[in-house]
């Protein structure tokens, strides 16, 4: 046993074990609360995990690099999880195949709305040009959005912030909004959240309904494709 508790902390704080454990432990609690509240939108496990862990890192003066040393094992699984989306897609292939036309129309309208609404609103709110450009790709998955942001000479880290916030907002608002306007078609609900709120929205959709999750993941993928073509175009048109 170490006689000095501080040296034990210094040792543990540098090891991946501690930060991997913290990530899984905090998420397990946040998810348990989410299940306990019957997946209440405001009990979103991503939202609560990130602020609790963020506050913990701040209190212990731990750098993100040190934290990521442990958390990278979880982050890595995003790739395999993307491949794994093939299974629900395969199992629901008949439902998907019968909805190709509505999906394509909704994709076109949704992608344009996502980009145009944020650019126009941000301009109207008087945000600086660089911030507006950084916000434009906020509805697509972080990796793609940061690439788009870079190609516009905007600020990729501000884009990442906008992407994660958008994802969480979409995941929280989708259920109350859809219930309010009386949409019971889980294909449409899932597709909308996939377009508006990428992976975090898709994760929410899978918690609610598998069909919604499948449509959300298709929407997320297609939107990443369309948005990377659309944003440079939209920016030249809307920001004249």
């Amino acid at each position, binding site marked *: 046993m170490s006689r000095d508790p501080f040296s034990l902390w210094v040792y543990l704080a540098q090891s991946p074990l501690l930060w991997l454990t913290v990530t899984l432990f905090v998420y397990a609690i946040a998810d348990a609360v989410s299940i306990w509240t019957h997946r209440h939108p405001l009990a979103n496990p991503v939202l609560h995990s990130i602020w609790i862990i963020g506050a913990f890192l701040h209190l212990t003066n731990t750098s993100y690099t040190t934290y*990521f040393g442990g958390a990278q094992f979880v982050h890595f699984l995003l790739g395999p999880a993307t491949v794994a989306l093939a299974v629900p897609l395969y199992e629901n292939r008949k439902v998907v195949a019968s909805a190709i036309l509505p999906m394509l129309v909704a994709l076109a309208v949704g992608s344009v709305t996502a980009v145009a609404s944020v650019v126009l609103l941000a301009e109207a709110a008087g945000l600086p040009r660089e*911030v507006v450009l950084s916000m434009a790709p906020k509805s697509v998955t972080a990796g793609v959005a940061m690439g788009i942001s870079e190609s516009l000479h905007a600020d990729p880290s501000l884009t990442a912030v906008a992407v994660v916030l958008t994802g969480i907002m979409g995941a929280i608002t989708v259920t109350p909004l859809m219930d309010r306007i009386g949409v019971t078609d889980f294909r449409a609900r899932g597709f909308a959240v996939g377009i508006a709120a990428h992976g975090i929205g898709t994760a929410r959709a899978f918690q609610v309904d598998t069909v919604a999750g499948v449509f959300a993941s298709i929407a997320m993928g297609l939107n990443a494709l369309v948005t990377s073509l659309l944003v440079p175009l939209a920016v030249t048109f809307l920001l004249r």
Partner: protein
Amino acid sequence: VIASLSLILLCQLAGEAFVRGVGLPMPGPVIGLMLLLCLLLMRDRFALLARGPLQGQDIERTGVERTGVESASRGLLANLSLLFVPAGVGVVQKIDLIVNHGIAFLGVLAISVLITLAATVATFILASRLMTRGEQRP
């Protein structure tokens, strides 16, 4: 479980290699997804492929829960939210960026999300209604 995970990783690896090799502007895992989907579809066509992680038994036909790559994938996707936590924590670290731009930044994102959700869902439902009506007429 190990065999199923290997199959998933193998698909991702092939996807990454393909993307790098051809120089496609696409994430490798997306190609991996398509590869796994093709394998699952081919499994139904050719009995030869239906072994190991791809053996896939239908719960309706045999009463046995699907095993192999199906259950491994379901396990991964059931905890999809968890996988966004490490990147999300990075955003909390950049909280000063949000504070700098204040309420307008958050407000614009929130309104844009609501508009996007509503526009997409309305279009989807309208298009699917028009389609079913078109099918009924002839």
